């Protein structure tokens, strides 16, 4: 894991002190809200429906146990005892008081965390594959590149006031677990023609009111050129992005309006100017950062364990969990474990302070002291030995973190919606809870296989509904909350934007409608191996429409 330099520490402390001064001046009335609003947003502090909301960055979703304990402490001391992990791998606190925020930021700084650039028109936290460094299908570990991007983009003076927010995701694996296609820039590590690894560069993906899949702007970018090329893209966007119209300000609109070919030429032209500048990454620059992400000292272990295998046979409950929430690890004798934040008892992505502390302890005990957050709002323990799976499962069960549903029906992404969000047009959490309660049946979920449901409480699409197999968008129709269904989206390597199936459903109808959609799939799939998405792509909208609207 990356360790801050002395200079990083200093910079962060200065920033906290600066914000403390700003808060004090605001509370004394020496700054007006108009003057202060900008400063608080620069430090991740929003005003939401009921209270302030603080968004804390988790760089590429990687947390140490100590950092997790600090997040727990903050939840307990300054908030209402819980936090919300978002699809952008960050954490949000829904109830901080303004006067406490400088102290919260101090506590965060002590563990090398902050809330800088988690809001506003700047480059936001870079997201990545939660299985980085341990996945079997990995070409190369993306984290060193994420860290290089973090260092380059943090306080980058030229890109502090972009036309709009800017999100970058990086993956190093064949399977896309970071939704790179729906980011302003998506980088995918691949093996190049010369055998060296480099990047596919996707630009102009995004969700919101105009969802778009990123365009492959460069098929192969040598690693050494990563930052110069990103700088070229950002510079072109900064100059040409539509500052005149909020709804057209994202880079996706610029790419779309300029046309892919012309946009590519603009980037190449800019890039030629800066290619040979100080941002060019020398081998030693990359190696230095890679040093922070070296493989731990894995033990040489057999890929079998008697206790594990016995329990698999004798305890169906354990078998279900192992089937759904454990993944293969690149190292023999190790497994990746998903901690489901999608039980029937808590809103998607929410974790209490006690749970956070316990997770930190489990990470120390069983997984080399680290935790990852995922795009689907779950957590991962990435390095668990086979022999530890049984005791880990027992502890997770006691913590209500062992619902066997990873990447299945009830593993729902949900934005905060109208229960918390000032921009919302409808509630999303109660809908996710109603679906989870209705279909809280392992056999049914298991039979449906790989499936995603995502819910957003307004067209901003923070809940990624466009790229779910089954997407739900809450809208306000003459004062009533109604829910639009989109089918056929995917956030993975076969990314696609779902299509609206027809008129919206009332809050009391939407769960039945989901049941109908699932029923059509079950009736029409060729065999249980055919996933919902594959079946939908084969069948088209017609049978679903027929069932839903008759």
């Amino acid at each position: 894991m990356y360790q801050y330099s002395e200079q990083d520490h200093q910079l962060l402390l200065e920033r906290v002190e600066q914000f403390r001064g700003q808060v004090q001046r605001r509370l004394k009335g020496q700054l007006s809200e108009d003057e202060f609003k900008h400063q608080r947003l620069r430090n991740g502090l929003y005003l939401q429906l009921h209270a302030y909301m603080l968004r804390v960055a988790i760089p590429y979703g990687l947390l140490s146990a100590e950092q997790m304990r600090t997040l727990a402490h903050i939840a307990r001391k300054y908030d209402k005892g819980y936090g919300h992990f978002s699809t952008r791998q960050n954490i949000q606190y829904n109830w901080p008081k303004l006067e406490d925020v400088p102290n919260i930021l101090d506590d965060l700084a002590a563990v090398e965390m902050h809330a800088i650039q988690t809001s506003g028109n700047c480059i936001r936290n870079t997201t990545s594959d939660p299985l980085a460094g341990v996945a079997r299908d990995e070409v190369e570990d993306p984290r060193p590149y994420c860290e290089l991007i973090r260092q380059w983009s943090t306080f980058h003076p030229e890109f502090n006031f972009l036309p709009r927010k800017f999100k970058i995701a990086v993956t190093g694996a064949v399977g896309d677990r970071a939704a790179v296609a729906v980011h302003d820039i998506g980088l995918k590590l691949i093996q190049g023609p010369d055998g060296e690894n480099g990047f596919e560069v996707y630009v102009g993906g995004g969700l919101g009111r105009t969802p778009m899949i990123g365009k492959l702007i460069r098929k192969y970018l040598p690693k050494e050129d990563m930052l110069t090329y990103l700088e070229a893209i950002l510079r072109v966007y900064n100059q040409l992005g539509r500052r005149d119209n909020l709804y057209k300000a994202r880079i996706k609109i610029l790419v779309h309006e300029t046309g892919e070919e012309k946009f590519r030429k603009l980037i190449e032209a800019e890039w030629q100017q800066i290619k040979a500048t100080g941002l060019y990454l020398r081998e030693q620059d990359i190696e230095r950062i890679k040093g922070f992400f070296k493989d731990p000292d894995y033990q040489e272990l057999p890929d079998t364990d008697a206790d594990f295998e016995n329990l698999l046979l004798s305890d169906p409950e354990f078998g279900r969990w192992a089937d759904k929430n454990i993944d293969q690890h690149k190292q023999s004798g190790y497994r990746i474990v998903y901690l489901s934040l999608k039980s029937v008892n808590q809103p998607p992505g929410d974790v209490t302070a006690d749970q956070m502390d316990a997770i930190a302890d489990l990470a120390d005990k069983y997984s080399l002291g680290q935790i990852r957050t995922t795009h689907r709002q779950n957590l991962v323990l990435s390095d668990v030995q086979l022999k530890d799976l049984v005791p880990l499962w027992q502890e997770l069960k006691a913590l209500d973190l062992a619902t066997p549903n990873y990447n299945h029906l009830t593993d729902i992404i949900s934005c905060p919606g109208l229960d918390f969000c000032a921009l919302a047009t409808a509630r999303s959490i109660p809908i996710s809870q109603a679906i989870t309660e209705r279909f809280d049946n392992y056999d049914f979920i298991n039979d449906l296989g790989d499936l995603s449901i995502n819910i957003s409480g307004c067209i901003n699409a923070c809940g990624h509904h466009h790229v779910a197999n089954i997407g739900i968008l809450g809208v306000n129709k003459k004062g009533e909350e109604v829910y639009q269904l989109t089918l056929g989206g995917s956030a993975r390597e076969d990314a696609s934007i779902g299509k609206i199936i027809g008129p919206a459903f009332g809050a009391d109808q939407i769960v039945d409608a989901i049941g109908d959609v699932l029923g059509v799939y079950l009736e029409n799939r060729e065999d249980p191996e055919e996933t919902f998405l594959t079946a939908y792509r084969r069948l088209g909208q017609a049978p679903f429409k027929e069932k839903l609207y008759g």
Partner: protein
Amino acid sequence: MALQVYTASLLKEGLVAYLCLEDGASSWTSDIRGATAGDGDLLETLKIAAEKAERDNLIIAPYVVDVLEAENGWKATTKREQIRADGPTIALPRDASAASTTDEGRKAA
């Protein structure tokens, strides 16, 4: 025409507040039911009081909300404002260990 109340967020805490006017003195309450509702001249007086509170750095982002008379006082007419007045409609996650510090929705925060 529905009557209106003034709402805002308390600067220090960020929590939701509604304006009450009693005998010319203004105060802010977390309970919409006890807010002062009005139209015409009364609404204008409420506006002046809200703007003063904003200048005095007690509250931020004031705006008006339509209300109707309900059993125990005023009730917002839209779902958004009802949720804003009453707090999230879902149970907040909570630890057993935190059970002693009771939490009546957001009001106790």
